[in-house]
């Protein structure tokens, strides 16, 4: 049944028998690092055996052993390439289906413009909340521009969860500020639309910020703990006592 595996299939990792004689040092290095060891299932495109040897669709965009620029060589090979767990597939299908099926009637209070007449002028004709929104929006942009200039490339930023979190934070403030600005200039239709968008991403902005804020400290803690065995004991003692 599995006779076709490894034959005429460039996406398959060669078996461990050829690892010592392989000229490709990168591939042999990868094999040594894999916790799973070489198995014929590493580069299978499907969980189920298929007799069709000519794949109609190439799953991997780059044949890079699942490690972009070698950045993820530290991960075992089986976590980088190969078929997905059927349980994860089912869970994902359940989640994607549920989000569509259980969609409520979306209603958001446009708080950025609903209390315009009740708010006191605080700065340049703006109420305090709008001034804060403008400050957050500009600060968010400044941080991104600064990162672009100082780090050279921030390609990973827009595709990371942290990046999404920061972009949401900046956008939420930007939408609320622009909504107020448009409403103040009598563009009520657009103001209402932007205020609704700004209002709709309030909770997700806050939750993402909380997750990033918490996880960053967990990450720093893990790095520190890995470097200090003595401190590990101290922290475990302090946590257990509290």
């Amino acid at each position, binding site marked *: 049944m599995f006779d076709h595996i490894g034959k005429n299939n460039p996406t398959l990792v060669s078996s461990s028998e050829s690892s010592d004689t392989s000229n490709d040092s990168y591939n042999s290095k990868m094999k040594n690092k894999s916790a799973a060891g070489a198995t014929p299932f590493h580069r299978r495109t499907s969980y189920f055996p298929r007799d069709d040897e000519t794949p109609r669709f190439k799953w991997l*965009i780059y044949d890079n052993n699942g490690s972009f620029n070698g950045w993820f060589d530290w991960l075992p090979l089986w976590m980088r390439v190969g078929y997905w767990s059927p349980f994860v597939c089912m869970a994902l299908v359940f989640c994607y289906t549920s989000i569509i099926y259980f969609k409520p009637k979306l209603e958001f*209070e446009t708080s950025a413009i609903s209390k315009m007449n009740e*708010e006191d002028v605080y700065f340049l004709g703006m109420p305090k909340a709008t001034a804060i929104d403008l400050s957050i929006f500009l600060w968010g942009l400044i941080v991104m521009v600064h990162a672009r200039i100082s780090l050279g490339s921030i390609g990973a930023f827009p595709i990371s969860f942290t990046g999404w979190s920061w972009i949401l934070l900046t956008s939420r403030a930007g939408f609320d500020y622009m909504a107020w600005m448009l409403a103040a200039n009598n563009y009520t239709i657009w103001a209402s639309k932007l205020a609704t968008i700004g209002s709709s991403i309030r909770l997700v902005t806050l939750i993402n910020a909380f997750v990033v804020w918490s996880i*960053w400290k967990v990450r720093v803690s893990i790095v520190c703990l890995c470097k200090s065995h003595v401190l590990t004991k101290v922290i475990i003692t302090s946590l257990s006592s509290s």
Partner: protein
Amino acid sequence: MITRIFPRNFILLPIIAFKSVPKGEKRTQFLKFNFGFFMTNIHLLNLPLASMNIITGDRVRLFTISDLWVAYAVALSYSLLYLFVMDRLGLHFYPIFNPRTSFTTISLGAVLGLFYFLFLKFNEYIIGKLD
């Protein structure tokens, strides 16, 4: 709660960070990277900035089921990008969401649960502020 959060985050963590990293170049690099302008902003100042006008300020409002739905929709949209684009490129930023291990179902469940938990807790906090 504050009496526990404050010492752990703002006293204990910096001490651990200083003590655990060896003195010299490594410590300088570690601190420079983790506490630089960019990292401090996107990882530490993000929560206070996000809280403004959402759970503090004059325009506070309670979150509804619509807000929760948008939060889930954004999270699942990110999962589409992560699983169907980044995974195929070989970018594995978050191994706990690796689709090749069944344990990811637990991580997924935990994230969905955490979102709901935070939704309830933030509303509790806002009710306390409004009262």
